[in-house]
């Protein structure tokens, strides 16, 4: 069989294939309802506001859903066997070694950031950021119905993070990363001896800074400057922007910090692809 096809049909990769199909479907379902609600002016859900008895109406739907899902699961379990490889052997490291599929976005981030960021700080901030969402999103509209135009910023940010930085990275990590975690296009054979020249340099080097200490200070300025963009914008705009006044300083700082952190990943990815940047900030204790 074609090696790529083999990879895609590996039993443990079936869930990713399922997601790649289900997610566009549900996105379409949600967005089409959102569009319809936006066009109608009042959400369709508002017209269905009377009460119905849980028994039989809700329970009926639940049982129906349960039966269908159990059928799907049954067929899935009869047709596809769970994988079992050789007994574990600490001396035989497979190349590539991959984490379970739902962690592959994190493993993929390891290409761009050191483990303490990709494996610890970013996951921590994802969790903290998710929990913070209800407290930093002060937009009272769009509660309990699908809509697109009433909360554009929230939707775009969340969908970007979820689709691009979680799902796409997961798919890339699973299907396009081969030996040595090198990138392989689907039609390419996985060559364990592929040589990738390591030409990455640090940002300070690109600016002609060769000594350690000035390079460290330069890097710090870039990183701190990047995160300062948020507060600077706030103090420039707060006089005129009603939105910023309503949001308040504390919420704003949390939003801008989380947002800039999220965007740091694609920025670093693009810097890596275009300028071969390895680190932005190199210090004796950590590298970013």
């Amino acid at each position: 069989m074609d090696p790529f096809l083999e990879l895609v049909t590996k039993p443990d990769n079936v869930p990713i294939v399922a997601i790649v199909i289900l997610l566009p479907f549900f996105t379409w379902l949600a967005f089409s309802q959102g569009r319809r609600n936006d066009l109608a002016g009042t959400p369709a859900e508002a017209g269905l506001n009377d009460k119905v008895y849980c028994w039989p109406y809700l329970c009926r739907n639940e049982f129906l859903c349960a039966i269908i899902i159990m059928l799907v699961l049954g067929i899935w379990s009869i047709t596809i066997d769970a994988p079992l490889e050789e007994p574990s052997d600490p001396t035989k490291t497979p190349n590539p070694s991959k984490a379970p599929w739902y962690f592959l976005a994190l493993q993929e981030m390891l290409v761009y950031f050191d483990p303490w960021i990709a494996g610890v700080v970013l996951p921590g901030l994802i969790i903290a950021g998710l929990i913070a969402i209800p407290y930093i999103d002060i937009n009272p509209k769009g509660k309990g119905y699908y809509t697109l135009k009433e909360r554009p910023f929230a939707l775009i940010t969340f969908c970007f993070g979820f689709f691009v930085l979680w799902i796409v990275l997961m798919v890339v990590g699973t299907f396009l990363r081969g030996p040595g975690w090198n990138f392989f296009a689907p039609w390419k054979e996985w060559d364990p001896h592929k040589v990738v020249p390591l030409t990455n340099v640090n940002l300070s080097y690109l600016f002609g800074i060769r000594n350690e200490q000035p390079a460290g200070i330069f890097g710090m300025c870039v990183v701190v400057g990047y995160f300062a963009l948020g507060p600077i914008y706030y103090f420039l705009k707060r006089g005129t922007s009603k939105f910023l006044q309503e949001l308040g300083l504390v919420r704003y700082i949390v939003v801008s910090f989380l947002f800039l952190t999220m965007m740091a990943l694609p920025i670093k990815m693009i810097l890596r692809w275009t300028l071969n940047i390895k680190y932005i900030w190199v210090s004796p204790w950590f590298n970013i």
Partner: protein
Amino acid sequence: MNERRNGLKEKITNNQIWQSMFRHGYEKTGRRYTLQVLQNVWLHLHPPRVTRHAINFRFTWCMGGITFLMFLVTAVTGVLLMFYYRPTAEYAFRDIQYLEFDIPFGMLLRNMHRWAAHGMVIAVMLHMFRVFLTGSYKKPREFNWGVGVILLLVTFFLSFTGYLLPWDQLAFWAVTVGTNMARATPVLGHEGPFAPQDIVTQANDVRFALLGGTIVGPSTLLRFYILHCVAVPLLASVLMALHFWRVRKDGGISGPL
């Protein structure tokens, strides 16, 4: 035909045994529908009535329910698997092989457990996506969204701890890669930034606590087994109880009004 059916129904329900279990009658009235939910311990998670849009598949996608269903399937199949599985380096792999080849429906059992676990991860991500898109985390549901995020984490962790148990190459290296990141934890991991040298070492950092050793080994297997079969499912159950209770206390499924 109808008469015979009614006669049969009468026979089944109109006796002391049946009525000791189900106290409500079968007339088609709101009172009976309410009692049916209130007097059943499994159904009484539901309120007697909900708004019409809340039972619409197109609104909730039923994803929270599917997540819960997948959890129940893994719980039932998981208990059955426990009869055949010993979490030691000598036996773990062989027990899985034995299960696959010699136990009637053993392979099916293992498949159902594994695919339901994967299904749960898919469903929980889609559930969260739906809750976000309908803005259902907004006041007064902020706290329940937070409970949900923890449940998401717990779901990943359930799946991850189970991944090790077959004790094959796939399991071993996936968990090795997954837990390797822990050594880079700032301050608490021996390779992390700001870890005090000679105080935080390979033999006492967070990764060691998770693995019970410096590499994935027999004590890791035991640790993950206990986490997977006892500790994390318990935590998940408690959090789910809280989650469902809060859905009701926050006014039921969110709606525009």
